[in-house]
């Protein structure tokens, strides 16, 4: 049971405060803020308590979303899920999440809070249900920006119909569609991979977590059919046909998804509610269909001048047509490293030594598949010993693989039925992120 809900800015300003059960006063907000700011890094921030009151919070977009409870049997799981839903709802309703958008839409948020929780019992967080009750209009907090004019042609004329939606297209309040906004559907296939490659180059662990997310700006609910690869299979036993099967270990679906055509044709049917929802989640572990995207060949030695030499060759094993972007390799270096000199294989790369985190960051903005880059780092480490050589590594990589899913999951088609009146647009995006990509040295 939730006793209070409040939203604080990162500086501790009270943005929203809602008391459901009258069990504690609003002074607990400050207590919470003191507690949360006093936390050190290794203390789990999830649940904190003050006398009889337990604070559970999540941080989203720099804001603290806090719920308090007094009942011992309330579930932190429920409350964290609820807070995550709340942030998603606020984002859906206000278009974006920020201190400003929360401030400007406080009346709307209070109205939401009233409907989704009653006396501490969570009632619903489905935007389909909520749209029947919510009266307040959202105030868009999007700042005026010249960049928004980018797809507006000369004299305001619409340029050629773009095949690419502007990146801001998916951040607007859902209700604006009521007033004749474009009816659009965005489908994102997002995968996160965590990989561990051993020092001998052997792939020790490779997990992929993926999800299909739908963001819907349709005024009325109509049925949507999402077709996945036909050779998509779940679990090891269930291989379908021959050839390049797309396989995942585990799969779970949003409760609104109907699976009657899934077994036979791999089609998900659902009536998307307005706003964002995760339609399907899946995991794959240890059995990637292709080689891991990056390989590292390090040589680490001490030169005669007592400096640490790191010669790194990084190979991208993606198909040649794809490319990784925003690649950043983090190489931990020995304690006491003072300075770094570098030789990089192309000018767009950069590298720097972060003393605070004791690591060299090697940044590669774009890394096409099938190519190889190299870098030579010379580190000045006073008193370098063989023991401190052990402190080098493991290398962590972060990157983004646009237009690519490592599992090979694709969306064959996206159909709306009945056919929507008026112009409607459907967008599909694929992206794979690195969750944790570690290469041991």
């Amino acid at each position, binding site marked *: 049971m939730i006793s209070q809900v409040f939203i604080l800015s990162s500086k501790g300003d009270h943005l929203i*405060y809602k008391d459901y059960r009258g069990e504690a006063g609003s002074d607990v907000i400050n207590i919470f803020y003191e507690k949360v700011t006093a936390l050190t890094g290794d203390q789990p921030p*999830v649940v904190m308590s003050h006398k009889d009151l337990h604070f559970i919070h999540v941080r989203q977009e720099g804001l603290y979303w806090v719920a308090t409870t007094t009942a011992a*049997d309330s579930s*932190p799981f*429920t409350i964290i899920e609820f807070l995550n839903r709340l942030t998603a709802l606020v984002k859906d309703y206000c278009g974006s999440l920020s201190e400003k958008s929360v401030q400007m839409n406080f009346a709307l948020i209070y109205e939401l809070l009233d409907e989704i929780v009653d006396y501490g019992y969570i009632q619903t967080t489905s935007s389909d249900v909520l749209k029947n009750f919510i009266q307040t209009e959202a105030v868009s907090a999007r700042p005026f920006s010249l960049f928004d004019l980018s797809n507006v042609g000369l004299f305001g004329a619409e340029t050629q119909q773009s095949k690419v939606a502007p990146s801001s297209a998916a951040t607007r309040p859902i209700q604006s569609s009521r007033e004749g906004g474009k009816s659009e559907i965005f489908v994102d296939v997002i995968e996160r991979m965590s990989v561990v490659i051993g020092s001998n180059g052997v792939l020790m662990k490779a997990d992929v977590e993926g999800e299909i997310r739908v963001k819907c700006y349709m005024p009325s609910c109509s049925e949507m059919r999402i077709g996945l690869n036909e050779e998509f299979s779940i679990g090891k036993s269930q291989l379908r046909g021959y050839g390049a099967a797309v396989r995942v270990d585990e799969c779970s679906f949003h409760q609104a998804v109907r699976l009657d055509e899934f077994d036979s044709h791999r089609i998900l049917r659902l009536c998307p509610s307005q706003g964002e929802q995760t339609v399907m989640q899946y995991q794959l572990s240890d059995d990637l269909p292709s080689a891991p995207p990056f390989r590292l060949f390090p040589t680490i030695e001490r030169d005669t001048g007592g400096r640490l030499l790191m010669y790194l060759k990084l190979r991208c094993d993606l198909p040649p047509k794809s490319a990784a972007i925003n690649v950043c390799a983090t190489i931990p270096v020995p304690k006491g490293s003072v300075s770094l000199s570098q030789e990089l294989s192309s000018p767009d790369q950069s590298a720097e030594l972060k003393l605070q985190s004791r690591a060299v960051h090697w940044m590669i903005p774009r890394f096409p598949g099938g190519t190889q880059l190299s870098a030579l780092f010379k580190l000045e480490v006073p008193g370098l010993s063989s023991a401190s050589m052990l402190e080098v590594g493991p290398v962590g990589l972060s990157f983004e693989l646009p237009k690519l899913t490592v599992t090979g999951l694709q969306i064959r088609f996206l159909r709306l039925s009945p056919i929507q009146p008026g112009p409607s647009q459907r967008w599909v995006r694929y992206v794979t992120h690195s969750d944790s990509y570690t290469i041991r040295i």
Partner: protein
Amino acid sequence: MCDFPFFSLVCTGEIFELKAELNSDKKEKKKEAVKKVIASMTVGKDVSALFPDVVNCMQTDNLELKKLVYLYLMNYAKSQPDMAIMAVNTFVKDCEDPNPLIRALAVRTMGCIRVDKITEYLCEPLRKCLKDEDPYVRKTAAVCVAKLHDINAQLVEDQGFLDTLKDLISDSNPMVVANAVAALSEIAESHPNSNLLDLNPQTINKLLTALNECTEWGQIFILDCLANYTPRDDRESQSICERVTPRLSHANSAVVLSAVKVLMKFMEMLPKDLDYYGTLLKKLAPPLVTLLSAEPELQYVALRNINLIVQRRPEILKHEMKVFFVKYNDPIYVKLEKLDIMIRLASQANIAQVLAELKEYATEVDVDFVRKAVRAIGRCAIKVEQSAERCVSTLLDLIQTKVNYVVQEAIVVIKDIFRKYPNKYESVIATLCENLDSLDEPEARAAMIWIVGEYAERIDNADELLESFLEGFHDESTQVQLQLLTAIVKLFLKKPTETQELVQQVLSLATQDSDNPDLRDRGYIYWRLLSTDPVAAKEVVLAEKPLISEETDLIEPTLLEELICHIGTLASVYHKPPSAFVEGSRGVQHKRLPGSAGSGESADSPDTGSAAGVSEAPPAVIPSQGDLLGDLLNLDLTPPTTSGPPPAPSSGMQMGAMDLLGGGLDSLVGLLHAAMGAGFGAPPTAMPASFPPPVSGGLDDLFDLGGSVGMPMGAYSPPKSIWLPAMKAKGLEISGTFARRAGVIQMEMTLTNKAMSIMTDFAIQFNRNSFGLAPAGPLQVLTPVGPNQSIEVALPLSTVGPVMKMEPLTNLQVAVKNNIDVFYFSSQYPISMLFVEDGKMERQVFLATWKDIPNDNEAQFQIKDCHLNSDAASSKLQGSNVFTIAKRTVEGQDMLYQSMKLTNGIWVLAELRVQAGNPNYTVMSRLVFVLTCSGANHKDYKTESREV
């Protein structure tokens, strides 16, 4: 106007302005004004002065405005109860509104106005709304009953709302059912004995049906309610499990975890041999793994719960080790939880993998994490015996890195490994000692000191090492001080001769110069133990320690059982029972797992959770650090992983402390001091067991002496050894030996004065002993002994003194007095000096007696490395009054038959076999009871004969 129009300051003038706007005719303006009011309210400004004006805006058909006004009302009604009455009419009217949204809104808001006066107006509208045709209104009304119950429980009962609520459980709308269940559950909590939420198979069935239809949040209410139900038998339990299982694949992790809770609980009732039981176990793993792909916050909560589940049923996740490997970018609190679970899942099958991971972690950057990883390696060693060796070598590798905190952490865990596998890995001690200087954390220092103390006999310079710690004794933390005290006492008991000074020093530091009562008391206890009964001290301090086991850090089974019932709740995150963090306000019930059904299986599998099975389990678990000692006695400030004294001395310590407190504190302390100080001088007399005097070694010496032919024949006399060190006798050092010269037993002593002053007035006395030895005359020290002077004295002894059996038999306790003090020491005399000159037996008598002595009076042993022929041996022995009666040669073996007689008339007959070229002699000795002698037994003669 600025960016945030609603957040500008509210000053008096502004309130005035708002008032005007609130009373405006224009709807838009009114709405904006109310918004401004609410914005001010949010940031904590007092806008209660506007109450009447805002309430005036209530009567509107604009739903948005109405909602805003209600929001304001909920906030301020409590502080303005009289004004709130003004709103009641509108509420009652709104409850009749044709729009269900408005009806629900009115009921909801009225319930939130926590003013007693309003409640009586609430009853009628509520009754209507509970029977409303619209489910949205009904579900809101159901919650309102709970609200009203909180304000006025009696009223709710009188009005019969509870029955209506119960009827709602059978409502057609699942949302209404869910809210009714939630409301009833809460009301039932405050009436623990009422049968409000009467769970019977029929209602359970209804709930299970609603479960499939209602929203995710409603499912949570229902699942939590189901978890409180106890099925009648395993069949019902199975059918509920079957219907709950589909929830495991829900996208909402809260639903998943509630379902897990229900399943974990009902699983207790299923017989383990059931196929379904295995299926269920398999089904539980994937959803738990899935939880780990959520946000870090949820992951953390999930891991805390998984930690409990793994302890209860490790089989669920035993194949999923890999998912708990930490990711580079996990937050530290997630990493630490994962490590914990990794250790719990570690087994022989996966230990290699786990260890490789842990070793990687130990080289990471994050200090806390690295420490925990090093600890984890130690815990693996303790848990999986087969891996211990590999763990130890991994730890040694880590110590080689010389990274300070890694070394310290490694030393702490190696100490635990020593405790688990004593006498197995001590070869690493040398490596540990190398790192002594780099230790700066109390725990690591204490661990190292423990190791040094525990293995003092294997570390040559243990006393130096400990002494180096002693220098900064007062700057150490209590943990280290206590450990140092114990370690030095251990050292003293093991190597008493060299460490007298050290132990005295530490005892006085602990007892006199410390403010810490624990330290002082422990010091006194040791002091008293050492001075009164060193044997007991040895038994206590060097007692065998219980082995630590991997269960040490498991949650105690009964608590675990309770926590399993609270999976998914706060208790599962804190790992504490709800009663520990909720004050009595709400009824806290101790939940228990249901007993298992199927009578036959509890016998072969006691861990199914039947109460009996659980209560049997705990004794095997050794209470972990400080659980028992610390909590029970509240004595040790520090967790005695570092092997504080075993419980016995602690309780003794407490008694001692009570003694102290009982009497006049100061005088008693003084007395104690004096007594102990005096007593402490005594230990040498009282410590025979721990000081094997250097007399033994006997026979070899004897034969060596005999080897040089020119030596005058005479009784063997061992070289002089120090009996009383100067340190313990205020400068008087006594070394001496015993000899038999011309038929007279003599004690030959060298008295050395190592003090600064002259010593005079020497006197000597013996304690009663086995052979009645007593000084035959006074100690002949005629001149005073100056500083650094020594004097030789020979004291003739008689054997007519009082007799008492000593242990060992030849022990002699001596008191020496001089002008300074009385000193006590003990020494052992060689039995050979008691052999009398007339010990030669007649041959016939010898033969007859030899045959008459029963076999159990016989002992046989070998004398090694004696390079004498039988004749030389015989003549040599004769000098010590061991007479050869006869000699036979059989198959190249010389057999000497010998006799000897003790001063008290006991005969010893022996057969000595000497084989030419074999340096080992075999002695078979038989003891004759000519006199019934006090307590002399064969065993003693065995040792004694060996010396000859």
